[in-house]
């Protein structure tokens, strides 16, 4: 799968989207996420693993805690894919419009 597809697939799960949404407002530890959401701590960890693999979430150690925050790489992959697609499409379009008249 391309990076943009991995990112989209990871966000297809509603719980993962919810975790991602919480992290968008600021870094949190696993325990904090589990307290706020109707999901067990091991389940949160598993979702974070998937989000991290998709480059939507990154983590860092702060003292004895591990804080999770959003990683711009994953969403940028989706954006870059669409940008490239439309760039090619419009370049073709310009050629066709000018050629055929």
């Amino acid at each position, binding site marked *: 799968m391309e990076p943009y597809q991995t990112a*989209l697939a990871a966000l297809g799960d509603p719980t993962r989207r919810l975790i991602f*949404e919480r992290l*968008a407002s600021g870094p949190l530890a696993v325990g904090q996420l589990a307290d706020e959401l109707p999901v067990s701590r091991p389940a949160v960890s598993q979702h974070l693993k998937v989000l991290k693999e998709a480059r939507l979430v990154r983590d860092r150690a702060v003292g004895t805690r591990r804080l999770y925050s959003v990683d711009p790489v994953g969403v940028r992959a989706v954006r870059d894919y669409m*940008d490239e697609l439309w760039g090619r499409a419009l370049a073709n379009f310009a050629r066709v419009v000018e050629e055929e*008249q």
Partner: protein
Amino acid sequence: MTETLSTEVHRSVTVNATQERAFDVFTGKWLSWWPLEHHIGATELADVVVEPVTGGRWYEVGTDGTECDWGAVLAWEPHGRIVLSWHLNGDWEYDPDPAHASEVEVRFVAETPDRTRVELVHRNFERHAHKPDQVRGGVGGEGGWGTILTGYAAAFV
């Protein structure tokens, strides 16, 4: 380090053509310029149709005659503007849920009588996500992604 994360795609191109011609080729001869490998049907693309009416369908036709929806025409304003909702996900499959649809707005601006600037904005494309097996109330609903992305973009500005 400061990073700016854009959540929209902006593209524009200026062509030596009238506004009317630019609009007609874009909407009516989609297949002549679209990257052909991007389609959802099992067979090669035979046509891509944008129905010329607000509320109309936007769909592909395969060489075997099968029609596959891409989205809907949200605004049909010849020859100045169209807005399409795009219901395709990352695997080029149709997702009927409007909460997962992105939006493509195209403006045709006449710079001179025979020169036209085409401005394209693809927004909310992050709404494309695989349809979850079980949608739980209040999570995948309308507005969810807009809220997420506002926060998400703000986190990097």
